[in-house]
């Protein structure tokens, strides 16, 4: 099958990559563009380990064809290390013990970062609702929720 040239913005930088039409974005990010923070989990849109921001909105990279993101903008945790909100979020994840094995963490960070950016006022219920699509098998969510709420209180105090 003929290769297609796909151009998009990855963490603020333009990238170009040749792909077959049936290539999944998760594979392109990990295998061709070296973005290893995007984790391979269930590969069926249930676990959230591969969550990225597509034009600022959280989506699963295992459920997108790479050809579909031509001209779009993608963010992963790799591009957020200089962002103040993101830094606070990471700090609170570590302080609160919201990380154990760490496999789900990039996905949780992306989703919670999107929540804190999208909604100005949030409650614990909003947090629960937002992270419905991310699974953690270690922490039991309590500490993750605490870390997100702590960050929210921190940025609004």
């Amino acid at each position, binding site marked *: 099958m003929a290769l297609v040239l796909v151009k998009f913005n990855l963490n603020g930088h333009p990238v170009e990559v040749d792909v077959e*039409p049936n290539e999944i974005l998760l594979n392109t990010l990990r295998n061709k563009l070296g973005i290893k923070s995007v984790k391979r989990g269930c590969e069926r849109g249930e676990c959230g380990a591969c969550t990225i921001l597509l034009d600022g909105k959280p989506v699963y990279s295992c459920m997108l064809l790479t050809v579909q993101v031509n001209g779009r903008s993608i963010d992963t945790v790799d591009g957020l290390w200089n962002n103040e909100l993101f830094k606070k979020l990471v700090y609170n994840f570590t302080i609160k013990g919201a990380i154990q094995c760490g496999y789900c963490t990039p996905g949780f960070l992306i989703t919670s970062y999107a929540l804190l950016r999208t909604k100005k006022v949030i409650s614990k219920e909003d947090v629960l609702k937002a992270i419905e*699509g*991310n699974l953690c098998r270690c922490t039991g969510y309590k500490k993750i929720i605490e870390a997100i709420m702590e960050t929210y209180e921190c940025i609004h105090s």
Partner: protein
Amino acid sequence: MFYRLPQFKYYKPQTLDEALKLLNELDEAKVIAGGTDLLIDMRIGRYRPKSIIDINDLSELKYIIDDGNRIRIGALTRLQELIYSEIIKEKLPILYEAVYHMASWQIRNMATIGGNLCNASPAADTAPPLMVLEAKLRVINIEGERTIDIREFFLGPRKTLLKGNELLKEIIVPVHKDYGYSYMKLGRRNSFTLSIVSVASLVKVENNIFSDVRIALNSIAPTPIRAVSVEKYLVGRKVTIDSIKAASKLVIKDISPITDIRATAEYRKDMAIILTYDSLKVALKRLGIEFVKG
């Protein structure tokens, strides 16, 4: 495991006309909107399309328009956009509730209302509310448009009245004032997984008599269905706890559940009765009618 999809040709039309032409010309083509069902179905081998037509650039199919007594929704409207819409929340609260409890934020950011209907899963969550609201579907091909009543749209699991060259364009939903509503979903995880049973109810009461009752369920038959037996029993009857109790039991006549990985047929039957009963009670409560007992 890396999963690889079968190979296909990829087309990304920029206009509706272009999309319809492609749909008319290409053999064994599949339309991709959100892709949250299609990519999984391709992965498990349910579909092996030769071509994929990506309609995501057709911005003319993304809208929510309030016409007063009806709401028109573009087929390519994302589920999350429905939740964000004040129009949907205020005028079609039953649809809002159903979508609010669907899948996850990540999925709702991609999945579309048109995709949920056209994929025609027996568990489609937007179907029960749209069936009680008696929505009309505008479909289009290169020759022209036609309107299909949503109650006739589903033919079986993943089968609809859509012809190979037709595209769902718009969902037209009548606004129902003075109706009590409820949407209830039973799934294994909170709201994330496919439902075991879902029930949508819309009721109208005049002088303590049921003047209109509409109930639709999913996951309990080859397609989402209306519970006609329950509806017929209730219309014209007094609103009492006994009448809704007796009516709920009749739901068995309308459904034909199967045993699958999510639940047994028997469990689904029991749950359909209980959810129909609960759903009617919640719908009545929204009209200010509450029962002391039961």
